[in-house]
Each structure stands twice: as C-alpha cells, then as structure tokens.
C-alpha cells in the first residue's frame, strides 16, 4: 500500500463512487464526474486514478455480469472500502474544521 493521503481528484472520485453505489464502474464514474464538475475528464485518467485508489486500499473492485453492449466485455465495479470511507470522512471533517475557523466577517468584507 502506498501513502494514504487523498488528492483532490481522488477525493472527488471516491465521492462519485460512493454516490453511484452499485453502478460505479469506469465509464459511469467518468460521466458523473463530467456532469458534476464540468471538467473534461478523460477515461485514461479515471482508469489510472482508480488503479491508484485500489493500490492505496481505498476501493475494491470485482467484475460484473457480461453484457451485450461493451463488445461482450464485463464491467469492473468499484466500491469503497472501510479505509476509503474513513479517508473521505477524515477529509470532510478537516475541511469542516477549517470552514468553521473562518469568521463570517471575512466574507462580508469581500
């Protein structure tokens, strides 16, 4: 297992996987990311990051049922592992803490 810090894109990815629940496979993740972030996300990048997340132990995967569409190839479905969920929660609480420290005054001035 490599280092366990969570990059911004990795975090988005984990969230997407969590949100998609049972339907989290590469193409769906890619679409979802495009839709919600407005970035153009390339499939190759999604694959690479999924691979990294799996190495870090944040997600696990298994092959699904065969379908006619994908040229007869099965999909690989991803789901969060316990460390993955923990990492997401950690990231959220860290952000929350920081948000809480910003006095409302600062925003008004801007």
């Amino acid at each position: 297992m490599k280092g366990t810090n969570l990059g911004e894109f990795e975090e988005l990815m984990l969230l997407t996987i969590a949100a998609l629940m049972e339907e989290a496979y590469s193409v769906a993740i890619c679409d979802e990311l495009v839709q919600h972030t407005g970035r153009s996300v390339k499939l190759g990048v999604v694959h690479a990051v999924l691979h990294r997340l799996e190495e870090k132990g944040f997600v696990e995967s298994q092959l699904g049922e065969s379908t006619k569409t994908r040229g007869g190839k099965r999909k690989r479905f991803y789901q969060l592992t316990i460390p993955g969920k923990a990492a997401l929660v950690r990231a959220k609480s860290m952000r929350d803490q920081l948000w809480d420290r910003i006095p409302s005054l600062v925003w008004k001035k801007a």
Partner: protein
Amino acid sequence: MSVRQPTHDSDRDNHPQPPRWAQRFVEWYCKPQLAEDLLGDLHEYFERNVESIGSRRAKLIYIIDAFKFFRPYTVRAPKFIKLFINWIMIGSYIKTSGRNLMRNKLFSFINIVGLAVSMSVGLLLIAFVLDLYSYDKFHENGDRIYRITNAVASNGVQNGKFGTTSIKTGKLIREKMTGVEEVAILRSDFSQDAKVGDNVVPIKGFWAEPSLFRIFTFPMLEGNPATALNDPYSIVLTETAAKKLFGNGSALGKAIKFDTLDYQVTGVMKDVPFFSHIHFEALVSFATAEKINKNDQRFEAWENMYSNYVYLLLPENADKVSIQSQLDAIAREENRAEERTKIQLELLPLDEIVVGEELRRPMGPTGPHMPPVVVWILGGLAFVVILCACFNYSNLSMARAMRRFKEVGLRKAIGAGKSQIRYQFLAEAIIISLAALLLSYAIFLLLRPQLINIAPEMQHMVKLELTPSMVVAFIVFSIAVGMVAGFMPALFFSKVSAINALRNVSSVKVFQHVMVKRTLVVIQYTVTLIFITATAVGYVQYKNILAFDLGFKTENILNINMQGNNPDVLLKELGEMPEVTALSRSLIITSIGNAWGGYMKSEDSRDSVLVLTNHVDENYLPLHEHKLAAGGNFKARPTTANAATEVIVNEQVLKRLNIGAGDPEKAIGEEITFNSFQVHGRKMTIVGVMKDFHYGRVENLIEPVAFMFWTPGDRAVINAKIQSTDMVGTLAKIESVWKKTDRIHPFQAEFYDKAIEAAYSEFSAMVKIIGFLSFLAISIASMGLFGMVVFTTETRLKEISIRKIMGATSGSLVFLLSRDFLLLLATAALIALPATYVFFEKVVLTNFPYHTPVQIAELFVGLLVVLLIAFIMIGSQTIKAARSNPAEVLKSE
C-alpha cells in the same frame, strides 16, 4: 475469460466495429487482469462515439485511446525479467559446464579451438568494418558535409562517376545556389620541394579555400583559421610538416621557398587524423593556384574536372531536393555550351566517401575506399566459416547425448522445466564461446599484421587497434556465436523425457537426429570444398593474369620514375653501365591501370574515338619488343610537343577509325587529327602500326592505342633493360647514380613484372583471404569429422567386437565404419564442385574477357586434399577400433 467479440450476424453486418488490430494491441501489452475492463470501456465509448460523431472518427478515437492506455501500470512485465531470473542460475551453469569441459577433454578442445579459430576471423572482420566506419567521424558537422560528384558522359557514352568536379562548379554553387551554408574548393596535386635555408623537404598537400576550415574540423595550433588561407602564397602546415621544415621553433610567419617563390606560413594545424579520407601535409591558399594559372583559360573550364574537389556544408534539415534541382539547373546551363561532354552533378554525403559507391579519381592515390559489396562478401564468407564452427559444436554436443541424458533426466526429475534445460545448454555454449573469445583474441593479435600487410592499400586504410566499441562488439559477437552454437543442443536436450532417460539410457533414440547431423556434415564439407576449390581456381587464374601475354615483353625492365628531373644525365650514366643493355624513355607505364588519352579522328571516321596514349622515345618499341604490323619507328626527333607529328598506332585504331581497309600497310602515311587536354586538333601522320597489345588491365578489352614521341616537356619514366647476375648490387649501383641527379627524393624504381603484380594486388589479397578461410574451413571441418568418428567408433565398439568374433576382417570393418562418412563426403563433392565451376565460369570470369577456362584438374585438387585429410581422420580411428581386442571390450559388460 473470453476477450473475443460475440458474433451476432446482425451486429457485424450493419454495425461498425472498432479496429481489430487496436484491440489486439491492447490485449498484447495489457496485463490480463486489466485487459477485459479496459477493452470494455473502450468499446462502450466507441459505441457512443459512433452515435454522436460517426464511425470514422470513433475508430480514430478508439485507436488513440488504445495507445493512451499504454501506461506503466497497465503494461505487463516484459519477458526479459523472467529471463533475468534464469540468468541468476548462471553460477550453477558455470559449475556444471566447467565439470563437463573437464570430463570430455577431447571434445572441449575441439569445440573451443574450433570456435576460437573461426571467431578470430569474425574479430578481424569486426575490427576491419568498425575501422572503415570510423572514418571522418571527427568532423563536428560531419552529417552536414557533402562532396559534389560528377557523372560524365562523353559522346553519349557513360564515362563513370567521378569524385572530382570542376572549379567552375564550386564557384557557380557559391554564386547561384541558395540553402548552402559553405562551399570549399580543394585542388589536389600540390607536390613540391619546400626550401628553408639549406633544408629541402618534399611537401604534399592541396590548394584550399579558407572556407575549408569552416566546413571541416581541422584544429589550428598557431595562426587564425579564418584568415590563414586568404592571401596568395600563404601556406598552412601540419605539425609534422612544420617540424620537418623548422625543427622545434615556431613556424608561423616564416617563409618557405617553393621553386623560386616565397610562401608565408600563416598557420600550423594539428596533423590530420589517420581516419580521414583527406590526407595532406600542407594546405596552400587557393588564391595561389588562381594566380599561377591566371593565364590558363582551361583552369576554370566546366569540363576540366579531374583534380578538384568541392565540398558543401548544408544547414540543418537542408532541403536536399531543392539543392539537387539547383545543381541540375547549373549542370543544364553549362552542358548547353558543351558539345561532347555532358556532366551531371550530385551530392555525396561525407560518410559514403570511404565506404560507398566506386568513384573514379578518389582523393589522391592514398584516398581509402571500400565498396560495401566487398564488406558484404567478406562478411558472408566469415559468417559461413563461423557457422561451420557452430555446426561442429552442435554436432559434437548432440553426439555426446548418451553421456548427458542421465544428467538431463535427473534435472528434469527433480523439477527442471524445458526452458531451464534450454538455458543450461545455451549458457554452456555461451561460456565456451566466451572462453574461445580469449583464445581467439590471441589469434587475432597474430593475424592482425598479416591482414594489414596483405595489400599495400590496407596499411593506409585500417589500423585494427582495439577501441572500447570494438571490445563491446567482440563480446556481443562471442555471445551471439554461443547462442547460435548452443541453439540446437538446447532444443534437442530440452525434449528428452525424464522417465526414458532415467529408466534406460539406451532406450532413448540417440540417432533420432541423425538426419540433422548428416545434413550439417554435408553442409560443412560442401562449404569447405567450395572454399578450397575456389582458392585453387583463383590462384591459377591469378597466376595466369600475371603470366598473361600482354603483347610485349616486360622481363628485366626496371622503370625508374624521374620525379620531375631531367632524364638526360641519368640516361647517360646508365648507358655507361655494363649491366644496362638498353634504355628508353616514356611518359607512363602501361598495363598496370594507368591511362592517358585523347580523341582521334580520321577522314573516314564519323565520330572521334577515345584513344589511349603514351609518349615514348625511339628506343621504346625495340626495348619492349612491340611487334609491328607495318611501318617503322619514329623518324623525326622533335624536341617540343608541338613539333611531334608522327604517331604509331595499334590495329584497333585502324579498325575503329576505319583506316586502310584492314590492311595496315595502307594506313602508313595516313593523317589523323588528335585532340586532348594539351593538344587541340593537331594533324599527325601514322608512321607505324603495332600489333594489338594490352594497354589497360586484363579485365579490359584491348583498346585503341597511339604512341607519340616523347619530348622533354613530358614527365619521364626511364625504362632500363637490365642483364645482371647480382640484381641487388646492380640496383644499389643505379641508386647511387640516381643520387647524382637528385639528392632530395628517394630513388623510385620498380621492375615491370613487380609493378604488374602490384597492380593486381587486390586479386592476390582476395586469393590469400579465401585461401586462409579455406584453411580454417578445412581445419574446422576436420576437427568436427574427427570428433564424430571418435564418437561413432566408441559407441559401436561392441558391435565391432561381436562382428570380429563372428569372423569379420579388419578391412571389412573399416569399410563398414567409414562408408557412411564417405557417402556424406561424396554428396558434398557433388554439390560443391559444380557450384564452384558455375560460379567462376558464369560470375567471376565473365569480367575477364581473355581468361583461361577453369580446368577440371584445379577443381579436383581441392577435392583430393579434403578427401585425403578426411581419410586420415576416419582411417586412424576406424583402424584403431577394428584392431581392438574383442575380449577386452566385451569383458566389461
């Protein structure tokens, strides 16, 4: 899991599919556990793209993505990592190989010596080729330097391609062409005596433009390279030349006298490296040549292209097509004004000057050149010899199978896989070939001086000194040889079944591969026979060339090069020597490849004809015993070239110019017109007709020749007929006479026969090389055969003993044992002899119009030698076996 496409007919018919090869590509590089997922995704996207942007672009995107997925984490571990793990086993392989070597001393000896001997040829060749390809690598802009070549056609006949070109070409390129960074004209044949005080030293070099230093990398030690060659009468010396002239003091700024003119030393440069196609001691500013030839209109003439070289430096990424079309334009423009000569200009890259197309007039006599085809032929021959040694190794290793089956069987039984057995045998072969490399390097050191001295040109061409790249090449070569040699044994032993090998060794069919082995023996002997017969035929043909009847006599004629001196004094002194029976003067020595010539026309001939010439005095014809068909010797004794109006021609001239209607007598007194570089339209009278003789080399047809009268303006060669029982003493005497004429230049004289021999040195070199290779081939084949015979007789010893007890005679046993081998040799002879015969008659000797046909005797001499050696090999062993005591042999069972 299946990664194949489902084949729904409806799908295939009207639905676009992603490109198949891209899918295969992903399957090939991708880790199997990721492949399905990846391909699925690619497919899904593809389907989408087909809907949205059409199938063409969808396919393109699919391909791009297939390449994009080529990332470190998707790519499966390459095979060599697995191989590497196997190489860790090498320690164990070395141990077992070592033990094996020790156990079978005879076979190890044959293998190592055989490989080493043949590998030494490979090493020589590698060193030779690496040397050839290391030429001109020291120029920083080497890949951008080009020479201009001229393809010349005169009167519509191609005269060949020249490495030289006219001065005009260089100037036109500088004026008219775009996209050329630098142009430099180099004029050859600066060869004069330099005088500094009392010190006189002959200096050879070139006339060069200042831009030469901007094109080539010739570092300057003293002086400014940018300006050194600007002014007339300035000279740049190399370090060595400067030392010769000025000792250890600085040469810069000092004066040198050439003839009567003072030249100033404006630079001293580092010596030209050995591996340079241009060699010189000094460069004289081109402005000097222009000044000296100011009144010569032909100096810059378009067709005066025989002694100048033009080099270009092109910018990076130069547009060669545009350069060529500009060159074509220049040539077109200039050719328009020429009637007879049409010249085409071409670019020749620097790295194709030494190893490349054969050009006429390469840089001076020492300019090294090697046509790639020679390298290929030598390489092919060396390859064949090495392959023979590899065959030996394969054969002997497989013949020893019986002894090694148990070892292999045991290895397999305790878990070795096929590939491990393969690696073991490969490793063993490689270890042996590395051991052979050490020995072969020693042989290489012994052979190196032989190769360098095989022909005079070689000494100027290669050094064959060890360089780091050579060491690497040697080791790689040795490993490659090991792999080739070990390939078949590895394959053979990996197939052995463990159960059979361990249960009962004799149940394994050792001679399953008997066909392979026989084929190898036949191939080996065929090659050996071809080599040997080729040597015999080649040698005989070479001797025939030397003894060829040129049409005149060359025996005991010493040709003394006057080197620019007046021949009169020497002629007088020599005339007084009792050993010298006759003397004559000539311009050149014919029949060794030299040629002068011009165009001749008669009233009856439509076109002018190229006629080869020599200028000779009245004594030349009798001295060389030229036979006259009609007429006589020169009558007039003109003292200037312009006054010479008599000409003696050979019969070919009459035929080509249509003079005298086949009767030489009628030709006497006829007038012809002669044109050459020095002579324009001179009328000359035929005073004699010679029988045809070989002016060129024997591979040329007999050509029209004309002799004019030698006049003092010509360079001179003195031809002295010598009658002496003490040649060495006579030569020493002549040399001391020479010293009176010229104290500076060493005496240059050569017997005519020796000169002819030297002219054909490339043939003698080829015969020597092939002879040497055939010696190797026969030694290797003999060693291999010997090993095989030893093995066969050993394995059949029991059979022989039983036969003996049953009453077989020694003679019949010898016949029984050697019959097989004799059959193989006969097969080899049946292939080799006709092949050699056809090769020489149809390929080699067609280049020699006057050759003697290949004699059957020459072919059979080779066969006899090979058979004799093979008989000794087979005979000694079979007789030993036949004489063995059956009681001793059978007792052991």
